[in-house]
């Protein structure tokens, strides 16, 4: 068994299985949550629930990131707020606008798009890795967070950290032969994809549901029973 074989396995069958588990697992989670049901809303309202949800999304994307200091969550712990924000921004930039990742999307979807120059993505990657380290330290020293962190939370950090660091090392051709670090990166990514549906990282999808429900609540302008 050579590294080229391991790489072929990680890019081939293992990736396919990870993708199946990811898609099937997310469908499972979504159906479970939808089947929990929600109470009928019979209160007469003056506002629009749809507009409320929409406004909540728009504010979250276009307003709050630019004036974070008006939010309590920022003022309570600005370092964590910034680290968390930059972490998510970095992930988006790297996964969507990094050339290597765009080529993955292209192979899956059949179409590609323009990407950012490597140095920009590279700096974003460095910032994102720094951010996850800060978030890790915060979880380690924050008395309340420490109490409510189970193994799942620590594994979340580990499984996200591994693909990021291996990807960074690979992009810079450091220390390892390319096929070795490429294999490590792909294995880490596959593990993450299998892990996501059954962990809180599934918030990448459920976040939009909860945001919509909260937004609708804000928007409906009615007396809560």
């Amino acid at each position: 068994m050579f590294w080229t074989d391991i790489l072929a396995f990680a890019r081939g069958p293992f990736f396919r299985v990870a993708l199946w588990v990811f898609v099937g697992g997310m469908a499972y989670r979504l159906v479970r949550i939808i089947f929990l049901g929600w109470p009928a809303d019979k209160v007469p309202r003056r506002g629009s629930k749809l507009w409320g949800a929409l406004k909540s999304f728009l504010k979250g994307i276009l307003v709050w990131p630019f004036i974070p200091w008006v939010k309590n969550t920022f003022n309570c712990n600005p370092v964590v707020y910034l680290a968390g924000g930059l972490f998510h921004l970095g992930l988006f930039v790297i996964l969507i606008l990094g050339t290597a990742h765009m080529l993955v999307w292209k192979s899956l979807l059949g179409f590609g798009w323009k990407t950012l120059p490597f140095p920009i993505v590279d700096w974003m990657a460095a910032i994102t890795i720094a951010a996850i380290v800060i978030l890790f330290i915060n979880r380690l020293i924050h008395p309340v967070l420490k109490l409510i962190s189970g193994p799942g939370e620590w594994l979340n950090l580990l499984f996200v950290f591994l693909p990021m660091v291996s990807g960074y090392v690979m992009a810079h051709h450091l220390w390892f032969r390319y096929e070795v670090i490429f294999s490590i990166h792909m294995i880490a990514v596959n593990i993450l994809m299998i892990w996501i549906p059954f962990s809180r990282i599934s918030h990448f999808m459920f976040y939009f549901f909860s945001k919509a429900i909260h937004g609708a609540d804000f928007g409906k302008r009615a007396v809560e029973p």
Partner: protein
Amino acid sequence: MAGKSIYEEMKENGFTRRGFIKFCSAVAGAIGLNLGSPTAAKSESGKVVRGLHPANLVSRALSSKPRLPVIWLEFQDCCGCSEALTRSQSPTLVDLVLSQITVEYHETLSAAAGFQAEDAKTAAMKKYAGQYVLVVEGSIPPKDGGVYCTIGGKSSLSLLKEAAAGAAAIIATGNCAAFGGIPKAKPNPTGAVGVMDVIRDKPVVNIPGCPAIPEAFTGTVAHFLVFGSLPELDHLHRPKLFYGNTIHDRCLRRPFYEAGKYAASFDDEGARAGWCLNKLGCKGPITYNACASLKWGGGLSFPIQSGHPCLGCSEPNFWDGGGFYQGQSAPLDRPALLTMGAALAAGAVIGAGVAGANTVQKKSARRKQESKNKGG
């Protein structure tokens, strides 16, 4: 041939002493010998020649050693490696292989054919038993008793085993002989394998490539001739001298990779300006070969220089290593929509089942509680 050294043979063929020394210098260069003081950096082959000029070392060997008999077998191949060798732009090295080394048997190059050629091979194998170098070109199909490739009524597997038994060393040239190559590509109907998978009791050197770089082949032979041993090999039995670096490491488009400038399509402005071919599917970063440094056509160019991405032809299973023109980061194959849909449906069905079971359980619990309350 007995007794006569290579130098004596060359003299008979009209070589002057000066020509011979020049030839020796070329050979020394081809196998990467360094003129080394004891503190000199090691050459890539790991050999440091102390106190002797490399050309002198080669000339000493060629003046004292007889010609090296070679038996060249072709199995499931396209003859491309032989073609590349005969068209090599380094005439001295081709001379070395074709004239100074005796090719006793070569299916494409020998004048004799049929039983005559077979007889010549058998005679050579007997005469030089334990001394000859066996070169194999093409893969071996052991499936179904080896019926998919036979020569003179014998299967390629038995021919290889027969010839390998008396060989001093075996050189597998081209990806087919080294790793199974194109015949081994999915679905591999003939069960093709490389020499390494069949012969385990003899030293096998792989010179993969499609075709193998002629200089890599002749360099390895020259090394064997001069030192009487095979050059240092990597984990895939490739000489480190030629396969020690990736194409990417020596690529002339590398600075553009570092700067993140990629050609978007074949022969676009970027490709012409020398930008990296990563997005066009270049396999340079995981391909170990000497194309970027030795190049082809007498150092004229190599695929990437000409604007075509590296296919990774010196690596195992290169034919099944993902689309040639798909970025290397892409997964090997695109999962079918049907299987993705099936995964989605399976997840949804299991989710609905578990949710339904939960609802039923909740309802029955509630009913029980209510009847309990009523009863109490």
